[in-house]
């Protein structure tokens, strides 16, 4: 026992410190919900022992879309154009299927200008963790309503929103995402569990994080303020994530919990809270969202999970090697093959 030794640094299962998962200093407002999301990402990737350089980060434009700079500096990041992170991420993930892709975007980015790409991304089930930092406003352009603002919400300047909200989770469920969740940037535990499940899920995960904008949408009259969300947040269930590498014997808890085994062998344990809810039942998920809207509740949890559907790599019948890593020998056919084709055309 040497007395001079510095205390050993805390590391995760691949020997990295939490420091290795950090990003640059945030330039977002103090108290912005988005910062909390970045913090959770740092923690979760650290805890899961993900190799940071295997991660690729994508975003569009907005305060939320700046977030990728504030976590995982050791991962490549791409701050693209407004509303089009989905296509950029799709291309990158197809170029290198070994990457773990994380998109962080905003409600304006996704549900307004980006809704076309969002809808079509949903149909592909490409493995990707797609996080919407949802504050019901355009933060970076200073507080206009977005498409996820609730009907009847008031802007900071007092204007009334007369458009009905577009629910990204509902679209996600209807159109083909295979893990769809809503949570709150202030709910550390739930957000962590959902992020972990999404990392373990080999398919498209949509995580709509209500992430208040303290500068433009945290006033009375807002339905996306910290106060409002805290008051109206109703958890659908309690979520536990049991990672595959932790050799824990899973006892079925009778009746009031359901286990979903994820692609990497991890288990998502869904514990009943008040109501019976089976997150693998699509119609149930749709119903719960409609009811929540009627009751003006912010229901959170994993609405829907489906581990059975083909992912996009399978649909495209792509080779296992990342396209970006294929050697010339495999990507350039022979002169003979060309001669044959030309001969056919003679």
């Amino acid at each position: 026992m040497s007395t001079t030794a510095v205390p050993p640094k805390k590391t995760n299962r691949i020997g990295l410190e939490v420091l290795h998962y950090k990003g640059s200093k945030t330039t977002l407002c103090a108290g912005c919900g988005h910062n909390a999301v970045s913090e959770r990402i740092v923690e979760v990737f650290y805890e899961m022992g993900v190799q940071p350089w295997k991660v690729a980060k994508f975003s569009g434009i907005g305060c939320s879309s700046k977030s990728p700079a504030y976590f995982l500096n050791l991962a490549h990041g791409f701050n693209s154009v407004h509303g089009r992170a989905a296509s950029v991420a799709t291309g990158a993930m197809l170029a290198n299927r070994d990457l773990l892709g994380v998109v962080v975007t905003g409600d304006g980015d996704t549900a307004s200008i980006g809704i076309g790409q969002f809808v079509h991304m949903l149909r592909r089930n490409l493995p990707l963790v797609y996080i919407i930092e949802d504050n019901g406003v355009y933060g970076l352009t200073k507080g206009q309503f977005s498409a996820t603002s609730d009907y009847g919400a008031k802007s900071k300047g007092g204007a009334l929103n007369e458009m009905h909200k577009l629910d990204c989770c509902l679209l996600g469920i209807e159109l083909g995402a295979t893990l769809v969740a809503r949570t709150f940037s202030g709910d550390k535990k739930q957000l962590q569990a959902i992020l972990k499940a999404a990392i373990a899920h080999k398919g498209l995960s949509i995580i709509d994080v209500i992430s208040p904008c303290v500068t433009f949408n945290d006033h009375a009259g807002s339905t996306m303020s910290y106060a409002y969300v805290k008051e109206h947040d109703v958890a659908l269930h309690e979520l536990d994530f049991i990672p595959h590498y932790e050799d824990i014997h899973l006892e079925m808890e009778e009746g009031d919990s359901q286990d979903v085994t994820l692609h990497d062998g991890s288990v998502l344990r869904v514990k009943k809270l008040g109501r019976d809810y089976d997150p693998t039942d699509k119609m149930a998920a749709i119903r719960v969202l409609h009811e929540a809207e009627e009751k003006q509740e912010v229901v959170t949890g994993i609405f829907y999970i489906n581990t059975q559907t083909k992912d996009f790599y399978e649909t495209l019948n792509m080779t296992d090697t990342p396209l970006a890593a294929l050697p010339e020998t495999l990507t350039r056919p022979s002169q003979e093959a060309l001669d044959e084709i030309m001969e056919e055309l003679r």
Partner: protein
Amino acid sequence: MSTTLTSLAREGGGAVPQRIVNDFSLQVATANGSGSQTSNIVLMRAIFQMGIPVSGKNMFPSNIQGLPTWFTIRASKHGWIGRKKEVDFLVAMNPETARQDCLELEPGRVLVYDEPLKLNELRSDLIMVPVPFDKLVGPACPEPKLRKLVKNMIYDGVLAFLLDIDMEEIHKALFKQFGPKKVKAAELNWGAAQAGFNWAQENVKVEQPYHLERMDGNKDKFIIDGNAATALGCVYAGCTFVAWYPITPSSTLVEQMMVYLRRLRTGPDGKGTYAVVQAEDELASIGMVIGASWAGARAMTATSGPGVSLMSEFVGLAYYTDIPAVIVDVQRVGPSTGLPTRTMQGDILSNAVLSHGDTRHPILFPSGPEECFSMAGEAFDLAEHFQTPVFINTDLDLGMNVWASDPFPVSDQPLNRGKVLSSDDLERLGGFERYRDVDGDGVGYRTLPGTNHPAASYFTRGSGHNEKAQYSERPEDYVNNVDRLTRKFESIRHAAPRPEVNCLDGAKIGMVYCGTSREAGLESQDQLMREYNMPTSTFRVRAYPYPDELNEFIDRHERVYIVDQNRDGQLHQLMQLDLTPARVAKLRSLRYYNGLPIDARSITDDIRGKEAE
């Protein structure tokens, strides 16, 4: 009053026509979706098989069925395969256009037509061959439903007789066209062709001047459309990622590419060494291409003008962030509900400056299938080496028409994947700065996501960064970065494909053009010399930014005609931006923009006219 095969007398025509061998243009006028495309291609292919230089150009409407279509076949012993302005020999099958088509012919030309059209009532100064197609098709095709399709094959037989095409060649071409899976259909059609031939042999007594004779002008050549050639070029360039959205005239590029990819790029595991995604629109397809390129795939898209317009914002981002992309623009007539089935070189200027802010993009201009193939490879090498979007501007004429092509050579050079640092490189170097101009060519070193090294990562964002790719709004960093991009563009000028120059002794004037204007340009050069004794040099630009050789060319000549297939003289306009005023002063702009492929005669007449001024 009319000249028909039965009358035999040729009135109004004058002397017995001179025999014209392997040098005329033949046009078939039908309706879209009537199956005439097959007959036309068979006809062209039979001529090709006879060793006669030949080209085929389809002028079709923007619909699927029923509107007028014209297919022009030109046979030229001199090898001129551009469009010929005049029609020498017309086959009129379409009641809707027959009268007009007939009236537009020069006197003395030949007109084969569907007998009920009674075109003989219109003019008496043509050589007319009415054919009772409907009578012939019945026996040839017992199934009434198929008659409409088979009817067109009859004219192949009639023309074989009239033009002296060996029926063997028709047979060969026809079975080639239908392929081994459709032998039955081929046989049916073969019957129809024979019926036409036999009928003509027995009934046609008129003499007409146009004839074909075997020669040896197509050695090693094969027939292919430009889109298929580009597709093959991309497959052989090791392209691994394609995202696209269908649009005429580029759809067949990707569609044929998918066929070739499946054939040539399926691994032993039965899986593809590529991904092709039909995206929801062009914004998504270019976004995917940029994402894929960024992550290390050789990525491309193919589209036409409307698609490029939609890609505008993204292409600007790729320019500023040094991301490769290959964009094939098969140009058509603008705007979006314009004339999608007519040809134009109309996107040159807008592609060169695409996107807001200060931007400039290189463009390659293939002139035929060989270059479609080879420039695909060059485009990927340029894009990856210079980390920038590269356009390949073909056009409808090149992309959708079939051409006789020389063999494509597979490059023996390794692919130029550009300045990509591996984890070993990083270990050795200890790190890197993404946007530092280490080599003075304006191109920094990059790493790919997934590179297993703690120094590998960097953050990609528009122009708000310093050399280390760190966030910066400092004025100096912005200037520094965009000046590097200017330097990069200059580097590209020297690396891009060199021009095709053909200087004639004693030429005081020159002609500059690009892409599909080549054939008309060279033919016009010949016409000017032969007909007017005006030696004219030619210079084919093969890439933008323009080569330094262009300066020399201009300096060598008194006047230089810039030939553009668009209204505004876009090739010329980019020169106005690039060249010294003294050189610009020597340029004269010639513009052709009616949506038809350019022809030599128009250029010749215009240059003659201007020179006479």
